[in-house]
């Protein structure tokens, strides 16, 4: 995707923060032919260069989100590949992985090609399709994983649903190894979540809402860790939300298994208390949990037991959320608030440095998924974000680039703005 043949770009005078090469210093970044040419002090611009003044800004590898829902095909009233790709760059993301639970699902090479073509036209963030793990995502028969990968899929997943059948899960973790891609699992035992709509506990009890216990996630995760051990396959666990899950991930890490995982910005800060008043904007799966869980996943991210941040960007039309709580869909619109929410959850209270946050949002996904992006090393694709970490702003869903505005943090003041996003050296988003 390095077809950018534009002029050289010199990003001058910023603070270059690139944890992939332990870099955090004032430097210039020179981009030639869509790739990083050099990083260093006082670089000279070749003739005909575009100069970007980055004085006072942090220059970092663009964020990579391995878990978004772009809704196309099928639910274009919520989001399209184009609106999602532009929401991504507005949030500082230069690459997003699109989940296959569309209508119809992305379970065949033609559908993978459709996503890639739409993303090319959009010219926002890079959009990499995740193929379905089972045909129709119905958990019965494995998809043609090789065909999906040939068409451009970067992983397989039945996200939205777990792969329930332990035998099928085992086969997928075996079969995917030929192609070097991860099996991405939404860990949830539906017999335990049993129609639940929020976290199980005293708040759900007081509200008379059916609860989803922590064990619904942790039980499935434990099984999958065991299957990863049996098969040697790469298991990537979606949106970890419970303290018990963290313990199983810790075991997997200690045993040296190929298990990676992600946590969402909302699970790093928000709790089930937001649901009070039947706030459907706070209805999300896995549900917002309690403080002890928030603390556990946050500490796990700091330790590296959870590898990375992913938004689980799940846009929904406002009418769909303007309903009885039971009937409203799960999901939070996450791309444009991710950086601010993570700063508020992690950096402001001193749990981690800005540099570590950039690692968890940019470098770690690239490292775990073996991508050439996620770094500003010479030769890497020039996927770059320019940030103003200390500038406050107010979340206003009406101003989202995303087609939807479903968020439980509307009206919140967040730190940290994205000033400019470059993909393959080309500016795809900029704001004052």
């Amino acid at each position: 995707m390095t077809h950018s043949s534009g002029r050289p770009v010199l990003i001058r005078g910023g603070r270059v923060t690139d944890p992939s090469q332990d870099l955090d210093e004032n430097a210039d970044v020179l981009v030639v032919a869509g790739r990083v040419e050099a990083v260093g002090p006082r670089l000279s611009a070749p003739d005909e260069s575009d100069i970007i003044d980055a004085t006072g800004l942090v220059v970092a590898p663009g964020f990579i989100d391995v878990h978004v829902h772009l809704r196309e095909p099928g639910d274009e009233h919520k989001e399209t590949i184009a609106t999602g790709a532009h929401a991504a760059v507005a949030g500082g993301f230069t690459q997003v992985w699109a989940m296959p639970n569309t209508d119809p699902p992305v379970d065949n090479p033609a559908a993978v090609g459709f996503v890639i073509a739409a993303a090319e036209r959009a010219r926002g963030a890079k959009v990499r399709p995740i193929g379905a793990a089972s045909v129709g995502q119905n958990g019965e028969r494995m998809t043609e994983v090789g065909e999906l990968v040939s068409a451009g899929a970067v992983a397989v997943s039945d996200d939205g649903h777990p792969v329930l059948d332990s035998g099928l899960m085992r086969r997928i973790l075996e079969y995917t190894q030929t192609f070097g891609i991860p099996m991405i699992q939404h860990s949830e035992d539906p017999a335990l979540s049993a129609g639940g709509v929020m976290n199980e506990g005293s708040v759900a009890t007081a509200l008379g809402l059916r609860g989803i216990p922590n064990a619904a996630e942790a039980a499935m995760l434990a099984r999958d860790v065991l299957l990863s051990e049996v098969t040697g396959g790469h298991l990537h666990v979606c949106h970890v939300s419970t303290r018990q899950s963290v313990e199983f991930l810790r075991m997997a890490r200690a045993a040296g298994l190929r298990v990676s995982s992600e946590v969402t910005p909302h699970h790093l800060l928000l709790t089930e208390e937001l649901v009070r008043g039947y706030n459907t904007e706070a209805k999300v799966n896995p549900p917002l949990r309690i403080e002890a869980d928030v603390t556990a996943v946050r500490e796990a991210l700091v330790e590296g037991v959870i590898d990375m941040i992913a938004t689980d960007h799940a846009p929904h039309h406002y009418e769909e959320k303007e309903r009885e709580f039971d009937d409203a869909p799960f999901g939070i619109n996450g791309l444009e608030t991710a950086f601010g929410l993570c700063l508020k959850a992690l950096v402001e209270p001193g749990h981690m440095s800005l540099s570590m946050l950039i690692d968890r949002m940019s470098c770690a996904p690239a490292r775990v998924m073996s991508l050439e992006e996620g770094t500003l090393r010479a030769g890497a694709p020039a996927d770059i974000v320019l940030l103003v970490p200390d500038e406050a702003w107010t979340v206003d869903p009406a101003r989202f680039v995303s087609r939807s505005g479903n968020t439980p943090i509307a009206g919140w003041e967040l730190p940290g703005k994205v000033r400019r996003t470059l993909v393959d050296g080309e500016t795809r988003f900029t704001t004052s």
Partner: protein
Amino acid sequence: MTPATAEPSESGPRLGKDLIGLENLEASQIQAILDTAEPFKEISERAIKKVPVLRGKTIVNLFFEPSTRTRISFEFAEKRLGADTVNISASGSSVQKGETLVDTARNLEAMRIDMVVVRHGSSGAAQFLAERIPSNVINAGDGQHEHPTQALLDLLTLRDTLGKISGTKVCIVGDIRHSRVARSNIFGLLHMGAEVAVCGPRSLIPAGIEELGVRCFGRVEEAIEWSDALNILRLQLERMKTGFVPSLREYNRVFGVTRARLDAAGRPIVILHPGPMNRGVEIDSDVADGPESVILPQVTNGVAIRMAVLYLLAGGHPEHAEAAKGGAA
């Protein structure tokens, strides 16, 4: 949250626009409803059971779930206070029906009604409606959340029988998990200073219930030993089909309130049941019909409580209730 503003004025504590639940009411507001119900009891004993307290008011009884006794009780209360009423029954969820609850709310608003009594299968639906229309909204049961008028009539019956609520020990027995009656009773009883327990199979006790301030009994014998009053909930047949209890027979054997278990306590224990009863399942007939049972007075009090709620939400003052029902139109 219920927009109940408890502004103490010379006319006593007022309710807010709506009655959604007892969780967010204050003791003084509950007290005012119970006190207001007292003078209204007498209206139903008259030969001509009608006073013009709500004359000219339009009330819609909007029932998204089937109901017989609650709807009839509300209807009697409304008619005996002289209101004009319309019953709307809409089966199934609003989504299945096609029209959203938002649109239903807007249509009601457009017809310039004064009050809506709503029952709905989804927790939070009454509040959802209340936040979107200017009319007074009374929750007649929303999902597994609250059923405030049922708990209020339980409180009134308890007060009638024991002379007080504060300091009494009340245990709610049965399917606590799925019960809006249980939740409203827990909140109401705790506000009024009672000690509250729940008892039932653990599969029917929701997680974190102790954090609401109640104790849990696993054996009904222990619950009876502890209690001054038992509020026995109906066990719905579908709980067996969905695996919460293995059989009704076993439920009766382990959790049924029987004469033998009651007598073992060696002192009278007040028996309440919100109805409809499954005789021989959660309650035996000789308990339901026994001397400790106040099940029929509960039904009678239901009309008075609902009159009181309607009157207060319409702007009536607790201490003017006696005069209001006198017939001075």
